[in-house]
Structure formats: structure tokens, C-alpha cells
């Protein structure tokens, strides 16, 4: 067992006994189920209205009526839930002085960060996998296109990974878990709002650059079913950048 696997296993073990994990998981699954229910009921009502007005059965586009709103709402939910998962990663180690154990063990800082990031990513992907129940169940009663749903899930996975890396970064900055959680809200929301700033600046080079920095346009394309390399590159490079900054911060603590 390599030290990375060891640390990964320990992090997962700590999540399994932590109330935070169960609360975040329950809230996330409840909200995603509730959203799916609302959207499906809404779509059903529209179909009935259509039937009353036009007296025909219109084929419902579930991709448009159900899945796209769910993906957009879940992305917002993630902004508030994922910092709860990442807040303890480094803040707790610093508070309990266990960072000293990790940093005096034969394991590199990059390995520590990868293991911790991978642990929250696995937890998140597990939760996300459970929301797959919605399209699975709906596929028995209706027909829809699977491709936009798969790109939507890819978008959620990439967006979640990016949010988690922001959370890891925030957690390295402080000993206080609450502060870490709010810092990562702040970082993520700034990235969210950048798209607004970009559109204010309009069709200028600066406007395009700032819009590119926000995750909103990238996520929109994925949810609409457009799989483009630039969006995947955006998420992966953003995630790596955040983890790299976290690495520098952990390293700098050793010098203080």
C-alpha cells in the first residue's frame, strides 16, 4: 500500500464516521430528488395543459423540461454543499497538530494533497452516482436523449472537482473549519460572478477573457450536450491550478 493509498483510505474512513458527510450526503440527495420530482410534475402539468388546449398528445422533450433545469439547479447546490466536505481536510490537521505527523513522514506534500483531494472527489462522485437514479427511473416511462445527460454528468463531475479543489485551497489557508468553508464559498462565487462581469464588459478582449475564467459558459455548453475540449481543459487546468496553489501554501507553512 503506497502512502497515498494509505492516506486516502484514512480520509475515507474519517468521512464515514463524520456526521458532516452524512448530513451533506442526505441534503444533497434530498435536494436532487426533490428537484427531479418538481421538474417531472411540472413537465406533466405542461403536457396536460397542451392536451387541453390543442387536444393532442405532444411528445415532451424531457431533456429540455427536466434534465437541463436539474443540472443547473444542482450546480448551485454544489456551491453551498461541497465546501462542507472540504473544509476539514487541512484546517483540522493544522488544528489538531497532525500536520506535523504527515510532514515528518516519508510522504510528499503533493501526495498529501492528491490523497485528500481524491478522497473528497470519490465521496462526491459516489453521491453524484446516486442521483443517476432519476434518469434511470425516468427511462422506463419516457424516451429522451442520453447524450446530453452524460455530458451533463461530466459537467457536474468536472465542476464538482473544480469546486472541491477551491475548497482544498481554502482549507490550507486557515485552522478554522468555518472560515475555510466560507472562504471556499467566496472563491467559488467570485468565479461564478465573473461571467456577469464579462458580459458587462461586452465584446472586448478583456470581456472574453473574464467570461472564459468563469465556469458558467463552460458548464452551460456541457449541459446543452456540447462536448468541447476547451471546456474540459478549463476545468482540469482550474482544478490543477487550485491544487498547485494549495501545495505552495502547505509548503510555505513549513517556513513560518
Amino acid at each position, binding site marked *: 500500500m503506497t*502512502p497515498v493509498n494509505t492516506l486516502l483510505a484514512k480520509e475515507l474512513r474519517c468521512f464515514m464516521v463524520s456526521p458532516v458527510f452524512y448530513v451533506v450526503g442526505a441534503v444533497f440527495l434530498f435536494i436532487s430528488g426533490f428537484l427531479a420530482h418538481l421538474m417531472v410534475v411540472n413537465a406533466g402539468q405542461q403536457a396536460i395543459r397542451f392536451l387541453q388546449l390543442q387536444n393532442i398528445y405532444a411528445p415532451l422533450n424531457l431533456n429540455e423540461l427536466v434534465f437541463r433545469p436539474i443540472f443547473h439547479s444542482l450546480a448551485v447546490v454544489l456551491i453551498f454543499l461541497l465546501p462542507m466536505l472540504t473544509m476539514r481536510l487541512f484546517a483540522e490537521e493544522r488544528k489538531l497538530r497532525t500536520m506535523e505527523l504527515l510532514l*515528518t513522514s516519508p*510522504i510528499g506534500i503533493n501526495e498529501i494533497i492528491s490523497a485528500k483531494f481524491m478522497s473528497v472527489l470519490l465521496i462526491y462522485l459516489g453521491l453524484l452516482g446516486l442521483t443517476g437514479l432519476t434518469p434511470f427511473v425516468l427511462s422506463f416511462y419516457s424516451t429522451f436523449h442520453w447524450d446530453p445527460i452524460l455530458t451533463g454528468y461530466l459537467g457536474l463531475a468536472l465542476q464538482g472537482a473544480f469546486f472541491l479543489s477551491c475548497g482544498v485551497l481554502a482549507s490550507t489557508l486557515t485552522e478554522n473549519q468555518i472560515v475555510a468553508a466560507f472562504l471556499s464559498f467566496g472563491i467559488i462565487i467570485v468565479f461564478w460572478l465573473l461571467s456577469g462581469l464579462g458580459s458587462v464588459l461586452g465584446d472586448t478582449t478583456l470581456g472574453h477573457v473574464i467570461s472564459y475564467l468563469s465556469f458558467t459558459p463552460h458548464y452551460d455548453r456541457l449541459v446543452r450536450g456540447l462536448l468541447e475540449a476547451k471546456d474540459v481543459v478549463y476545468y482540469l487546468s482550474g482544478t490543477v491550478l487550485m491544487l498547485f496553489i494549495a501545495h505552495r501554501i502547505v509548503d510555505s507553512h513549513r517556513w513560518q
Partner: protein
Amino acid sequence: MIAVQHITKRYGAHVAIENVTFDVKKGEILGFLGPNGAGKTTTMRIITCFMPPSEGTVQVAGFDCFEHPQEVKQRIGYLPESPPLYQELTVMEFLRFVGQLKRLDPSRIPGRMAQVIEQVGLGPVQRRVIGHLSKGFRQRVGLAQALIHDPPVLILDEPTVGLDPKQIIEIRGLIRGLAGSHTLILSTHILSEATAICDRVVIIDRGRIVAEDTPAQLSSRLRRSEKMSLTVKHAPDDWHDRLSTIPGVMHVVQGTTPETSIIECELGHDLREDIAQFVVSQGVGLLELKPLSLSLEEVFLRLTQQDEQPLHAESPSPSSITPSSVGNQTQA
């Protein structure tokens, strides 16, 4: 085994340790003494590669801390000031985790765990969650995690803090038992602990090494006079003046009770026989006469207060070290 050379650590303008140099030979126990904030923990953190020094080099088992940190880390067991414990794991889970983290051969982990749990007396709590353990047990888990990978070098920052007297004796015995096969550095506030278990003592004050020697030699080196404590049954009023008339006696002060006197004589003269004869001839009832050696406490105080009391002052001044109280601690 451990070679610390000219290390300096600065935090901005503040100098935590300055030009610290010492060696620890294989199988030796080195005691690290100093008042709070003297730089003990900083030095230990540098040796364990937790933080790099501003200047200087550290070598552990032939590996440089800066160039081969992983090799060094694998060879060191470190117990920091506050034991690094994950509250939500059980003792066994935690020790297995640390063993794996320190790259201990997986086939050796169960054996080492059993051995270490036995060594530090964690048997009754090995399946309990660390967060529910008392401070003494947590300290032992901290010690166990330092020992789990059987490292040749052990660095223990105040290993007996928070333990009850019985546990302290057990842990000291354990540490002594590790000497020979392991190289140890331990820091402590408790000076009698250093005297009891260390082969050599380094005294550090305000970031500088002020003395380095065996506990016995340190006290003899700094001794400027022979001291003894005399207790009689009935001390007359002018008893101290009478004692001062004995040839060779330099100074007489009162001990803890009026009947007890602390007598200082010239170095190298054993006046016990003369004093005994004098006391008997005076008919005051000799109860006790014993030599006082300079305790590590006194050495420590003299070295760390040398600004106020020059170390090589010619005339001995008992007021600087309150001989009565220190003298009694020595015997305790």
C-alpha cells in the same frame, strides 16, 4: 548518527535558534534542556525535516535533511509536543495507519503493532477510539506512533508530560531500554528526568547552546565549593557563628529549619570529619550531616541566568540560587 551543524532559524527579525551545533552518537540518549521558548522544539522540528533551517545543515544516519528528506523521515520516530492523533480512529487503526505511512513492510505491521502496544501499555484500550482516551493514554499512543516503524532515531518532545508518576517511571524505563539499539533525543522540563535517563545533556537558552556534557560532569564543572547540610538537635543562638570558626568553612546559612545549616567549604577539602568532631564537642546533638552535590536544577539556573549572575564569578554568592530550597530538592 545525528550531526547538527551551525543551524540558525530566523522568523523575520526574530532569531529562534542561533548557530546550534551538536552530535549524537549511535545508541546515545541526549537530553535537551531549556526554559520555555528556548528553541528546543524548533531544533527538533528541523532535525525531523518538518521545517528547514535558515542556515546550517543536519544529517541523520548519513542523510542530509535538505537533500534526502524522505530517507531521513523514514528513519526517525517523532513525538511532537502535542501528540498528533486522529480522534475518530481507534488505537489499532491509527497505529496501522502510521505504520503504512512510514512505509513499514506490510508483513511486519501486525507484529510491530502488538509489540508496541505491549511496550507502552496500551493493551486495555487498543480497540477504543482515541478521542475517548485520557491524556495519559493519548500520550502513550503518541509514543507508540513514534515507535511503530522501529526507527533507529527517536526524537521525543517532552515524552512524559501528562502522565502520572507510575506511568512516568514506566515510560522512563522504556526509553532507557531503547538506548543502545536506538539513538534518542528528548527534550524535557523535568531536570531529574534528564539526570535519570540521559547520557548527555545539552542546555539551550534563548536559541544558543550554553552547555553540553554528562549530567554529572556538568554539575562538577560548575561547582565552586563543597556544600553540606548539617542538622543538630538543639541549635544555640550563635550556632552559625560558631560553625564559621571551623578552619576551611567559608560560609554558613540557615536551611529549612533553625536546626539545619548549609555549610559551604573550599573546593577539594572534605571537612565532614572536622565538622562532626566540632558538633560533638559542642554537645548540641548531631542528627544528620550529608554532602550536597550541585543538582542539575542549579546548573540549569546558573547557566540560564548568567546575564544576571556571571558564570565565572570569583566569590560564590548563595543568594543567586537559594541554596536551602535547591539543596532540599537535590535530596528529594
